[in-house]
């Protein structure tokens, strides 16, 4: 679940999910890298002679090596999550244009969406400044507390 893979490699729940994937698809190794983060999991018996130093060395190298442009950016993104339960609206009315769209530059005070809860329309402020990378929810969708709404690149 994208929702919960918060970008903390020490998140046990996420690791558990990866392990389930490995078992399901009979994988012996998963090696995920992103900026300065790395998750590497190996399973099953491994009889082949291996220079164990190598992967570790690689690991350290990888960490030191400059990450790819896109992914490096990604890890620095800020995700704006829902502070309440309700219905998500991208615009103040069906006719109006969306509060934000991908590529927009926004400030902390910018309204990114409206969440309707109990007939009250709540404007949700961005809280960060940067460039909108993605809008993660469809207009009119029900959303729960903590659900990711908008992804912002604060460095852009």
């Amino acid at each position, binding site marked *: 679940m994208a929702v919960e893979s918060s970008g903390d490699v020490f998140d046990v729940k996420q690791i558990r999910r990866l392990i389930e994937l490995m078992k399901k698809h009979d994988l012996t190794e998963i090696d995920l890298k992103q900026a300065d983060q790395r998750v590497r999991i190996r399973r099953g018996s491994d009889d082949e002679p291996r220079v164990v130093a190598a992967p570790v060395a690689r690991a350290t190298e990888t960490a030191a090596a400059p990450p790819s442009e896109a992914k490096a950016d990604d890890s620095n993104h800020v995700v704006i999550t829902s502070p309440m339960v309700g219905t998500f609206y991208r615009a103040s009315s069906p006719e109006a244009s969306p509060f934000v769209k991908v590529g927009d530059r926004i400030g902390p005070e910018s309204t990114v969406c409206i969440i309707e809860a109990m007939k009250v329309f709540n404007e949700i402020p961005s809280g960060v400044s940067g460039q909108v990378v993605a809008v993660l929810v469809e207009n009119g969708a029900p959303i729960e507390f903590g*659900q990711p709404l908008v992804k912002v690149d604060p460095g852009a």
Partner: protein
Amino acid sequence: MFKRILVANRGEIALRVIRACRELGIETVAICSEADRDASYLELADEAICVGPARAADSYLRIDRVISAAEIGNVQAIHPGYGFLSENSHFAEVCRSCDIGFIGPTPEAMAQLGDKNSARTLAMKANVPCVPGSDGLVASEQEALEVARKIGYPVLLKATAGGGGRGMRVASNDLTLQSAFQQAATEAQAAFGNAGIYLEKYVERPRHVEVQIIGDMHGNVVHLWERDCSTQRRHQKLIEESPSPRLAQATREAMCEAAVRLAKTAGYYSTGTVEFIVDQEGNFYFIELNSRIQVEHPVTEMVTGIDLIKAQIRVAAGEPLGFSQDDIVQRGHAIECRINAEDPAHGFRPCPGRIEKMIVPGGFGVRFDSHVSSGYVVPPHYDSLIGKLIVHQPTRREAIETMQRALKELRVEGVKTTVPIHLEILSHSAFHDSQIDTTFVERTLLG
């Protein structure tokens, strides 16, 4: 009948409601906090909506978020469980104004019964015995003395604004009453900014006996006999049973009839519990009516064979009860032990954490209601109940034996539980002889 309801609670009672709904063919939307997000019982709901962070005040107690969840979940009604919003008449009102069914009584009945004074007035109107006491506040020492002489010592002085034992004094004669009155008033003023004091008969070593009732919207109210919840620690129930041992049949019937009278007078429907205390002479006095389902409802289900949650949902949907008073027979004896993640060796402090392994008891006469299984993490944010072990046997003696063997079968690794104190109580001769009052546990086992 409802097609889809919101379960506005967590843990075992949420699972209990989900189970009933699955049997009734009703879809369920569960709410959860961030702390409960991974709990496996949520998988049994058709949908789960996170309504806030771990703290109950920011999630399970947030009326706006619960109502929003009901709206986006597209449900017809809300089951509040027990605790949290279940006795909040304002919440019931909001449900009504949002045109969402509330699986419980009317807000008016809840409000009236939730207030101590109006509940007492109702009870007297319904000819239900209340603890004798002053008619409202006592203005002076002199008045206190007069009331005390009328109702007889010992008496209890209580702050009208009080709670948690503060501003409470017991007096056993005129002399102690005089000093107690001033002390209680001073303490109440200091603690609550309100010196108002009232006075009632002090019941020594009372037993806590409660009557389960249920009513529908068509004026039918029946009782499902009583439960004895005298085995308590600091007013927290540990063990509940039905029937109440050593209760004279005439008293039992009188209590149950009184409970039905009160509910009818209050225009009450849904499930409810009328709590009484019973003194050493067998006199019973009304304490309060809890306008919700209770933790210990399975005890009544076992002896009557009636699924109270299903019945509660049916009447909330407007259906008639479907059974009459004569259909409800108490069969055999049921006992429930509350299994809490607490450490009895250290003052019952909560013991949250990961349950590494859990083996559940089974077999003849055993029911285990629990949302917990191996790998579950008991969050530190809520009450520590991790399961209810219920047994049903033809006799009380056999029920005790079955409970003992089931408690010994239950294996919970990773957190401490209340199992040891239950085993201690169940093997105590006073429990076998049913010589239990609400002070028993502290007096005998923890003194």
